[in-house]
């Protein structure tokens, strides 16, 4: 089920008015696309928080605008606590849109019982999908994944009519042997002082001798 947002049109623009709007518990938004005029909107922040928690890509707008739209972008504050702004894009039933969807892993891999660990490498996939069939996320079942096996982006089940835009050979998730502690701390193996770019060795030695 799609989330619905009650929107109101806003005429006052600029950071001062937008800041006041946020203080009133509303999130500024914009609706654009299909060659029509942009509409500046305000959405109650509780409804936005709910839609974001559900991961909804398609939402129904009610109020000043009555249509189903695509959430193109969500802008967050530096701490990722509050949504600052939303971009809505107009869509039509016969249209395909390019979108980045999150990947969720399902099941427990057999490989973990064989001594392996699951490494989720690619968390998002870019696909071209019919606008009204956009799912909230792409699910990958890894229950049949053995040690040293991988699932590539080409093997991910896409919604009907969707097309993969990222490279089909890219590894999404694999089951590998756990890393040994030594491999992890290779970066820390260096000792002494770092090399100074553009300085000759004799200069560096000379400077070292000065201090006492």
């Amino acid at each position: 089920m799609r989330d619905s947002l009650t929107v109101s049109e806003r005429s006052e623009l600029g950071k001062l008015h937008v800041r006041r709007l946020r203080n009133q518990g509303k999130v500024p938004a914009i609706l654009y696309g299909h060659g029509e005029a942009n509409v500046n909107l305000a959405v109650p922040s509780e409804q936005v928080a709910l839609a974001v928690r559900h991961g909804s890509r398609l939402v129904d707008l009610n109020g000043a605008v009555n249509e189903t739209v695509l959430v193109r972008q969500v802008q967050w504050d530096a701490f990722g606590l509050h949504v600052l702004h939303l971009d809505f894009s107009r869509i039509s039933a016969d249209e395909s849109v390019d979108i980045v969807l999150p990947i969720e892993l399902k099941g427990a891999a057999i490989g973990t019982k064989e001594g392996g660990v699951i490494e989720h490498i690619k968390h998002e996939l870019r696909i071209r999908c019919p606008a009204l069939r956009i799912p909230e996320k792409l699910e990958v079942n890894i229950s049949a994944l053995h040690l040293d096996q991988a699932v590539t982006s080409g093997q991910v089940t896409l919604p009907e009519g969707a097309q993969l835009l990222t490279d089909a050979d890219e590894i999404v998730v694999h089951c590998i042997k756990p890393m040994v502690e030594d491999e992890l701390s290779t970066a820390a193996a260096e000792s002494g002082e770092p090399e100074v770019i553009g300085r000759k060795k004799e200069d560096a030695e000379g400077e070292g001798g000065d201090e006492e």
Partner: protein
Amino acid sequence: MALMPKRVKHRKNQRGRIKGSATRGNRVVFGDYGLQAVEGGWIKANTIEAGRIAAQQYIRGEGRLYVRMFPHKSITARPLETRMGKGKGEPAHWVAVIKPGSVLYELGGVTEDQAKVCMARLAHKMPLRVRFVKRRMT
């Protein structure tokens, strides 16, 4: 041995000032869960390493830990019992400059409960206030 750069342009840095919040590096990108700094400050190279070891000992090779900070800044110090003057001291240690909102560590391949326990252990090592974060919609 703690982390430090391989090559630097200058051996000694000025102190600098931390202004504003992190506008980059403030999202969980590599793993599923993260530890985010709530306040700014410096984190020493050996503290970064201590945090990594604390987390690694808890996850025991099950998940994958990502360290999202690096000590790029050298901090100088004077030797003990020396008089003032005679120029700036020698580099004593290295620190990572942390802006509020920066994600310090990330963890993937573990459950949320495991990640919370692991990050709590890690947070004890940190000299800044931190919080547990998850991936978010963009």
